[in-house]
């Protein structure tokens, strides 16, 4: 099963999550960037974790009141610098049509440089092939963005996109729902995306008993095909993350449901997702 761990604040727990071979950590929550105190920007925390961890996927919630050009550049830069470890979860701050268009613009900007646009030809003194860098010329109801992005295409093509079930569209790589919403996440309802269920857990009392129940609940839902994995949200990060790793992970490994180490490849590859084609492939000239 695919396993993510939700972290808050400044991302304490990421190193432990990596030691336990979690697929990713998820930074931020629905209030990120909109309200709440300043000083816990999920993307900045995820970027910090790029150098304090080595392999684990790093997913940041990003409120879509930040302009699509800024979002595309930040997420794309993150993916480039980290060598393909980036994921992101847009959080809607307006109406659904606006959020949909925002995502459309971000994906176009990711694609504004073709994969082979950087030619690095020292002899001919050509850094980038300008015929493979395209204006997106987006003009919609909410955004007008000319492009291109001022960063090349991210190594994953599109960094892994997580969307909440309620807002999931055709481009979601991962759909995230509450564990009580599994009935709305059948394969018929979510045909291709990875389906993850979020469980808030508390192992602070009756630890062994609660840990066993959690592992049992997760394996049952997974083996019945009701989801493809989980995002675990500790009720109390300081205590519940070590307890999860000591009490629950060995149980899941014993059942053959949790990995011991990381496979090769970038975040997208490890999740078994295909690399998206570039929508501007074949377009000639800017």
């Amino acid at each position, binding site marked *: 099963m695919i396993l993510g761990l939700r972290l808050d604040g400044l991302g304490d727990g990421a190193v432990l999550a990596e030691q336990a071979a979690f697929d990713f950590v998820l930074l931020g929550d629905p209030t990120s960037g909109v309200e709440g105190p300043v000083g816990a920007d999920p993307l900045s925390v995820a970027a910090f974790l*790029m150098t304090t961890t080595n392999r684990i996927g790093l997913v940041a919630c990003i409120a879509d009141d930040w302009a699509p050009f800024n979002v595309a550049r930040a997420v794309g830069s993150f993916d480039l610098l980290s060598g393909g470890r980036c994921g992101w979860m847009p959080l809607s701050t307006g109406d659904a049509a606006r959020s949909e268009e925002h995502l459309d613009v971000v994906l176009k900007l990711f694609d504004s440089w073709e994969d082979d646009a950087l030619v690095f030809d020292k002899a001919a*003194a*050509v850094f980038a092939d300008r015929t493979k860098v395209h204006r997106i010329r987006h003009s919609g109801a909410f955004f007008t963005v000319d492009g291109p*992005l001022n960063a090349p295409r991210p190594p994953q093509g599109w960094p892994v996109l997580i969307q909440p079930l309620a807002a999931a569209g055709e481009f979601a790589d991962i759909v995230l729902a509450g564990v009580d919403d599994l009935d709305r996440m059948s394969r018929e309802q979510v045909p291709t995306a990875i389906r993850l269920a979020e469980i808030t857990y508390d192992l602070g009392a009756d630890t062994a008993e609660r840990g066993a129940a959690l592992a049992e609940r997760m394996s049952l839902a997974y083996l019945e095909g009701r989801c493809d994995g989980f995002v675990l949200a500790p009720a109390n990060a300081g205590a519940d993350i070590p307890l999860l790793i000591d009490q629950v992970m060995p149980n899941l490994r014993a059942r053959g449901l949790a990995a011991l180490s990381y496979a090769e490849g970038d975040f997208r590859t490890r999740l078994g997702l295909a690399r998206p084609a570039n929508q501007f492939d074949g377009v000639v*000239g*800017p």
Partner: protein
Amino acid sequence: MTADPAQPGDLLHLGFWMLTSGGHVGSWRHPATQLDRLMTIDHYIETARLAARGKFDMVFFEDTLAVRERNGGVLGEVAINSLDPLVQIAALAGATSDIGLAASFSTTYHSPRVLADKFATIDQLSGGRTGWNMVTSGAASGRNFGNGDHPEHAVRYSMAHETADAVRALWASGPRSPQVQPVLIQAGMSQWGLDFASTYGEAIFAAFRDIEGGRAFRTNLRTMATEKGRSPDAVKILPGFMPFIGSTSAEVADKRAFYRELIRPNMVRGILSERFNFDFMDYDLDQPFPLDDILDGLEDRPMITSDRGRFVKEIQPGDTIATYAERMASKVSGHLTCEGGPEEIADFMQAWLQGGACDGFIMQALQIPVELELFVDQVVPVLQKRGLHRRDYAGSTLRGHLGLEAPR
């Protein structure tokens, strides 16, 4: 008002300007430049650690919100310097321990909330090592933000004032880092820029023609800050600077020739095309500068109409395209340069500091890492021996390195 020369014992404050492959436009073609690493965090970690070995106060990232273009497409002849600077300093916070981490970020295209949140977060993650260079962004950015009309200069600065106030208020409401708040850095030498700098700026990134110009600017800004109730020492002036290090004049000449060779004719044509919004790609570099061709139809290229007078002034009688380009390149984008061995480079820096013309420099290296390493290994020890540069960090906040007090 007399100049306010540095007191003996004052230290230079040094920022290192993090460009992908270096400050020279041909640096990406340097044999030591590993192009496949330029956009990996390892490249920046190694560079920041090298600067930390030289006990620099900080590394400094610029910020642009549009590609460089020529003739309706990307300027493919130069390297990119435009990854998100806050993602970079956040990542560096996890991989370095003492050196300051400064980044430019736009007051025009980010809300106070976003600016305050990101810098406050990275300031905590880094233990109080961040600086924010408050920039208003160039005109080319507008078309990526649904703004065909990029706000004009005065409007951008009035927005910047409001944004700076709002960001500081948000910081005051949030958790305090060891340096309380990020250091506020500012560039821009217009009247609006000076007013903004004397109100908010703690480190000022400046460009001067000569030492007298530096001294006059510094004296003026310190006076303006005093008039606003601030200590004159609460504002540090840091001009841009790029040294040509060579132990003999022959070595310097060789280095100049080597770097000149890195600029190929197509790069010259491309950069001129960008500068004049005119297609130079089929021109011979040895032909007379085609001023008439450029001025012809200028009204159809509105981006540069306002620069017409400046461009015309720059072109001298008898110029070929090549001689014009060479003269432009030697200006190193308005920043200071000097050449010579380590003692001579140190002499230059000392003269500016003790002449009251600056408090330090934001330094570029011709190429990263080769020329930064040369500076760290050869010039830094001379500066240290003269008592002009720290031998080790005395603290671990940027505010501490720069000798700035916490904001009230």
